[in-house]
Structure formats: structure tokens, C-alpha cells
């Protein structure tokens, strides 16, 4: 094995062999991005790196600037806050969800962005926020096992109809999109979903509670649950359900009545390398580049021109493919931003009362 593989991420062998001296010297060896023309980009890691490298990172590196990509925590809001409050910028660009953007933006922790140009104009309206640019759309959709479900469900109402659609069910241990699902099942008009009628949602949830076999807490879990047949019917992100399908599990996605959210780039407020960071973010609006990440990542480009470059078979699996997208409802982060804490408390209390 070539020696450099050990050095790559910071701790050199010499640093270790030098014992104490190596450890004291270490801060100087791995100071995070401090060179003038270098930015550090935090993404969710794993398959995102596989997708974003050819799509965004490699083309940007070709411009002559240095870009280091690092993996972030699943919910990096407090990390952004800590970095801004302490003025210690480990990241120059960070991938966050639209709802995290709301939280951070309200707290004044994001750098304002002003973009223009052809690529930018083609983006979905929600992807163009004053301090955030959306790169990919995820669907919060239902998936089910075609072998274990005797009748084929087609919407949220069927999820709540345990008599006509018998099968083991799972729900997330979180109110987000769970309340929306309950209201849609109860017949609320998707266009008049928000502001959520919370009492009505919990009343509907009462009816399904005894039939929930698993309250899942991580998206990874949902792939496993469907894959192994532990659960037959559950809501999750479309990419997680797609992973089970790709592994050969007899599973289908229901786009109807699904919600969608976005992930995208933001810059921590006051970041000294904000100018270069903005250049990077602007380059991610391009449709052709967005098309590239869809090979690895089953999320929908925010620039619809991307579909010109995507294989039609793959396009059918993505949330922003026009036919799928027309069935999805935007998640309202304004409402969630104002109500999230109360909803978490009420949901947790509701779960514990049994």
C-alpha cells in the first residue's frame, strides 16, 4: 500500500513516531482550509460524495481553486451556530436542508447570497432563497412491499386503512411529515394542508397508533426494514426506498400525496472565504452538472433542464421528474419553523402515553 494513503487525512506516520512532539506539531499539520484560494465544503458523506464529486467538485477544481470536501453530521445546525459564534470557520460551504435553512436564517447565522444568470433563473422557485441555493429535491413518500401487501395501496388514506390493506406498518418517531400524512389520510385538501390542523392530525394518529410495529429513527433503518420484510408499508425518503428496490427487494414507491423538501448549500455568516464559496455555489445551479449526481443519488435536480441529460429510466425514479413532481406537495418550512418545538413536545408526549 502506498505510504501517502496514511498521510492524506492528516496524521502522518512521522507525527506518530515522534510521539509527544508529533502530537504537539499536529495542529500545524492539519489546520483546516486556510490557504487563500481553498474552500472546505461539508456534505452528508457517503453516496453524496460519489454523486457530487463528478457533478460539482471536479469541475470547480478545474477552475484552479482548491476544494476539500468533508462529511458533516446528519443535522449540522448547531455546528454552524458554533462556528459562527466562535468565529472559527471549519466549513466555508455546508449542505443543509431547507428546513434547517429556516432555523439558521432566523438566527442570523447564514451569509446572504445574490445570484443571477441563466442557470440560476432556471431553478425551482423554492431553491432560490436569499441565503441558500437548493441543489436537490427529496421526496418524503410511502413505500410498500408488493409481495406482502395483498391489495396495492395508492395513498395516505390506504396507509391508515388497516382493514383493506393489512400489513405491518412503520412511522418515523418524529412529527415532521407524519402530521401531514395523517391529515391527508383524513381527507384534507393537499392545497389547504397548511397551517396544519394539529388536533385533527393527532386524532387521526390515535387510530393508527396500535397498528404501528416500528417507530423508526434513522433513514438507514427504513431501507433495512423494507429490504428484510420486517415492515411492509412505511414512509421514508425516496432514495432510501429506492436503495431497497435497487437491491432487488419487491418494493414500490407511491408518489401520490408525498411531500418534498430540499437540500442545498449555505455559507456560515462572516466566513472569510465567502467570495470563493459563492462562486462554488453559483456553479451548482447548472442543469447539466446536476444531472451527473443523479447517477449515484436518487434525488431530483432543482434545475429542470437537467432532465435533458438524464436517462429516461432513471428520471422516473427522481422526485422532480415532471410526472412525479406534479403529485408532490411542498413541505412548509415557515409553518414548521414557527411550530417545530411545540410539535416535538406534543408528539413525544403522545407517544409515551399508551
Amino acid at each position, binding site marked *: 500500500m502506498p505510504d501517502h494513503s496514511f498521510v492524506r487525512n492528516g496524521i502522518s506516520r512521522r507525527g506518530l513516531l515522534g510521539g509527544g512532539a508529533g502530537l504537539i506539531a499536529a495542529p500545524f499539520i492539519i489546520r*483546516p482550509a486556510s490557504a487563500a484560494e481553498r474552500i472546505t465544503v461539508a456534505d452528508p458523506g457517503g453516496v453524496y460524495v460519489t454523486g457530487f464529486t463528478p457533478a460539482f467538485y471536479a469541475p470547480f477544481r478545474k477552475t484552479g481553486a482548491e476544494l476539500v470536501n468533508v462529511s458533516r453530521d446528519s443535522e449540522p445546525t448547531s455546528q454552524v451556530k458554533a462556528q459562527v459564534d466562535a468565529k472559527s470557520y471549519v466549513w466555508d460551504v455546508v449542505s443543509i436542508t431547507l428546513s434547517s435553512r429556516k432555523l439558521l436564517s432566523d438566527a442570523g447565522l447564514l451569509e446572504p447570497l445574490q445570484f443571477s444568470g441563466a442557470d440560476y433563473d432556471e431553478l425551482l422557485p423554492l431553491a432560490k432563497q436569499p441565503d441558500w441555493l437548493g441543489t436537490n429535491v427529496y421526496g418524503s413518500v410511502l413505500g410498500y412491499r408488493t409481495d406482502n401487501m395483498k391489495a396495492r395501496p395508492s395513498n395516505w388514506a390506504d396507509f391508515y386503512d388497516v382493514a383493506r390493506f393489512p400489513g405491518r406498518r412503520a412511522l418515523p418517531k418524529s412529527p415532521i411529515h407524519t402530521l401531514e400524512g395523517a391529515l391527508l389520510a383524513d381527507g384534507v385538501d393537499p392545497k389547504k394542508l397548511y397551517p396544519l390542523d394539529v388536533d385533527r392530525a393527532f386524532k387521526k394518529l390515535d387510530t393508527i397508533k396500535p397498528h404501528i410495529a416500528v417507530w423508526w429513527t434513522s433513514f438507514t433503518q427504513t431501507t433495512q426494514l423494507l429490504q428484510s420484510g420486517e415492515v411492509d408499508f412505511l414512509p421514508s425518503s425516496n432514495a432510501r426506498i429506492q436503495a431497497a428496490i435497487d437491491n432487488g427487494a419487491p418494493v414500490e414507491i407511491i408518489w401520490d400525496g408525498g411531500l418534498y423538501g430540499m437540500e442545498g448549500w449555505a455559507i456560515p455568516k462572516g466566513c472569510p472565504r465567502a467570495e470563493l464559496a459563492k462562486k462554488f455555489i453559483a456553479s451548482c445551479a447548472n442543469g447539466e452538472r446536476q444531472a451527473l449526481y443523479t447517477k449515484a443519488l436518487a434525488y431530483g435536480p432543482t434545475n429542470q433542464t437537467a432532465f435533458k441529460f438524464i436517462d429516461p429510466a432513471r428520471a422516473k425514479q427522481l422526485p422532480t421528474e415532471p410526472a412525479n413532481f406534479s403529485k408532490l406537495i411542498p413541505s412548509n418550512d415557515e409553518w414548521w419553523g414557527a411550530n417545530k418545538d411545540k410539535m416535538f413536545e406534543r408528539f413525544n408526549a403522545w407517544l409515551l402515553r399508551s
Partner: protein
Amino acid sequence: MTAMSARDYEPAPVAEPAISALQPRLRRARPLLPLLPLFAFLALFFFFPVGQILSLSLFDQSGAITSANFAKAFSDPLYFDVLLITFKIAGWTTVISVVGGFPVAYYLANAAPHSRNALVIWVLLPFWTSFLVRTFAWMILLGRNGAVNQLLLALGIVDAPASLIFNLTGTLIGMSHAMLPLAVMTMLPVMQTIDGNLSRAAETLGAGRAQIFWRIYIPQCMPGISAAAMMVFISSLGFFITPALLGGARETMLTQVIITQIQELLNWPAASTLSVLLLAASILVFVAYDRVVGLSSLAGGSADRSARTVSAWSRILDVIGRAVVNGLGSLCAGIGAVFAWLLPARAFRGLGRGSSLALFLIVVAFLLIPTLFVIPASFTPGNAVQANPGGFSLRWYEAVFASSDWTSAAWNSLVVGLASGAVALVLGTMAAFAMAWNRFPGKTAALAVILSPLIVPRIVIAVALFFLYSKLELVGTVTGLVIAHAVLAVPYVVITVMAVLATYDRRLDQAAAVMGASRWQTLRRITLPIIKPGLLSAFLFAFVTSFDELTVALFLTGGSFNTLPRQMWSDLLLQINPTLAAVATLLLVLMTGLLFLNERFRRSAGRH
């Protein structure tokens, strides 16, 4: 000679002129000096930064002073319920781990030294499979279509798949599996130092085997048992991933709620308030535990107890405790007598040894279950980890070796683990000597202080250290992570070493001193070699704490350098895939191989 206390052993003052009245006091405080480095270390890297974050509980989000945070936490029954659930889960985990770990430690302590060291390696196996891999392994094994249910169905034990997971049962299986090695490795060094002559003396005086066990052996094990129970309980309070993945609707830990407050709601004051509550409740439990079980047994024998003015309350408990132990002794003696009457003497003795072996094997088998699943899963030809992989392929191993991400992450984890283990071992052992061999006011409080890094949720420690590190230019550095991990690991070292020292026979030191050995020579040639098993356990706990740590590493490095848990977490993003199983298998083979080699070298070195 026997009644000699620690005070008598103080070296004679060498003609020191009394300059001030302060001097005798200073001299009396001198044995406590070894505590200083640890307290200074914790003050700077734990109490100062964490105190700042916890003080946020006194402010509202705009920065004005308020008692509203606490008022809200107390008025909402939700938090009280979650706290109760947290303590219930931690309590059950402790009971299962200590009761299950005892026969294992007992068997190991009584095995021949060379086979003991080989057997310990099996008990340690779960340490080398990351908690993420282990938890997912349990998810697959205990599921409706999992191997365990298939076995139960095939044996006709159940008619329909049993609910082994997504409830309290699943949570406790996962948590006690994680905690059993800790319990065993804390009790073992104590049991190894027990003087077998006492049991033999009791036998000579006519005590039956059961009586000896309950009235002579168990009381001598108490420092180990109480140390194990405390470490398991306090460590369990901080668990959240296992209950989240294996539990049901009701298995919500307070740590999980705190994480939601920090990350989903960005409400640091609320998170701080809940952390303060968790800390306060834990200290209450700690004090109650001290009153009832007596940490004094851990901190230097029951002499402590009689010296103190004992309250009527603890005297009553003491009487009850004695009655229970004596009663159990008589009961077992009775049952034993029946067996002895039915069976010939040799068969009876064989039965005793056989049942201790059987218990050992059952618990070790439980510890090995997830490992036995991980190894075949790593050879899966397909993309998904499944209960029945079917086929054989090395492609996932090729993938691991082809990517420098895994090798560099492993290297980083090893370096950080060894360094933080070493720091924790030195600081913790010094403190443990001072704690175990001195009686001083506020000792219980000092112990609570040392244990608190285990109670404060790691995400809170991570946020706190980030602010400190940004001033010290330590953000994203190896040094910073080593220090943080040493903070998390040092309580394990202190408790483990204290437990061994509690049963250490100080007359050996006195004998060495009489023979003219200096203090340093005595320490190096007599004390340290004798307590070596305890030191090794302590180092191992410290190393594993760092090796398996995700939250703090994630926050402090910002991803600027990868550790193994970080790399695994990233790999788990979409699904649990066989790469992870391959990495886990490699680690298992590597670590176990190293331990075996070490054991071989030690043995051959000992022979020459």
C-alpha cells in the same frame, strides 16, 4: 500488623523544622497531590467549557436571565417521564450486565492464568465491532424474519415470530450486550486479587460451599461489583442510538431529547436545562447509591463506614443486606445439601464446576452472536446485508483496501485511541491512588466530579469544547480530539484502578519499605506489577471509548480528518452495506490477533 491503617504507613518526617503552623496541614494534604493533575485537566477541558454551556439554562434565547427554562422543564410531565424511562432502561441494563457478567468474571478469575488470558480475548470481542455495526446486526438478527426467530420457530418454541425487537426487550438485549464486557472487565481484576486463603479458612472452620460463597467470597467481590454497577449504570444513561434503533414507542432516552433540542430546534438553553436535570438526577442516584450500597466499599474498605457516624437509615440497610446475604447462603447451603445427599461427593463438586462453565459459555455465546452474523455478512456477493447471504465473494474486502478512506480512518482512530488512552491512564491512575488510599472529607463529591464527564451528554461536551478550542486554536486538530477523548475516558480509568486498589494488600508495600525499598521502587516493582490486570483493563476501556466515539469527533473535527466511526457513519447513510461488515470483520481479526500475539510473547518471555 493487621490493624495498621494508611495513616501509620506515612513515612516518618525527616527532621523538618516547623516553620509555620501551616506545614502539618500541607503535609497531610500531600497524599492528595496526585489528584491535582486530573482535577486541573478536568477543570480546563470539562468544567470550565461545559459549565459555560450549562449556564445557558439560566438565560433565555435573547440573553436575559430567567428561570423560565427550569420552570418549563418542571411543569411539563413529559421530561419527568422521559427521565424515569431513561433511569429504568439504565437500571435494567445494569442488573442484567452485572448478574450476567459475574459468572463470567468468576470463571475467568478461577481459571489457570494462561487459559484465562486467552479466554478474556473472547469476552472482549464485542469491543472491536463498532456499536453501529453491532446495533444493526441485532436489528437483522432479532427481526421478524431474523435468525433468532427462525431458530425459535424451527425448534417449535414459538408458533409465530416473537417480538424481540422494537420494544424494551430489544433495547435491553442491545444495551446489555454492549455493557457486559465492561462489567466483566471491571469485576475481573478485583476477583483476581482475592485471597483464596480466606475461603479455605472458612472451610476449615466448617462452612459449606454455599456459605463460603455468599458470606466470604461475595463480600470480597463487592468493590468490583459496585464499581461495575456504577460504570454500567452511568454509561447507560448516555446511550441513545441503541434504544433509538432497537426500542419502541416508549424507549426514549433523555439524551435523545437533548440532541433534538440542540440539533433540530437549535435551542441551546433548553438543551442545557435538560442536561442540568440529567446531571442533578444522576448525582442524586449516585448519592443514594453511596448511602445504600456504599461507594466506601469501592474507596477503601468497610472501615470507612464504621468510622463515620452512620445514620440509623444506613444501619438498618446494613442489617437487611447482611440478612439477605446470610439468608441466600443458608438457602443455597440447603439446596446444596439435598444435592450432596443425592449425589456422590465427586459428582457434586463436578456439578459445581460444570455449572460455572455452563454459565460462562452461555454469556460468551450471547456476546458472540452479532459477531457470528457480521463475519458471513462480509462475504455477501449481493449489495445488501441479509439474514441469508447465499454465495461467497471477496468484493467488499477489495473495496475496503481499494479506498484509502478506510485505511486512513483506521490509522487516525488508532493514533487517537492510543494517545487518549495513555493520557487517561496516567491522569486517572494517579488520581485513583490518591482516592483509594486516603480518607478525606468530600471524597464522594470528588468521585462524582470525576464521573460527571460520563453523565453530561456528549453533544453538550462537543459544543462546549468547540468554543474552548476555537480560542486555543485546537479545532480540527488531533491534539484536540485526543484531549476530548481523554476527558470521556478518564472516569473509567479512575473507577477501574480504584476497584483493584480497594482489594490491594498494602502490607506488601510496607514489607518492601521495611526491606529498604524507596517509595518509587515499591511502586514500580511491587504495586504496579500486582495491579497490572486492572491497569490493562483501564487502558482498554479508555482506548475503546475513543475508538468507538462518534459525536465529539464529528463536531470537533468538522470532518477535517476521518475516524473509523465517522467513516462507518458516512457509509451507513443510505443502507447498511457489506463494506461495513468487511471492515468490522477486519477489525475483529486484527485486534484479536494482536491480543493473541501479545499473549504469546508474554508467555514465552515469562518462560525464559
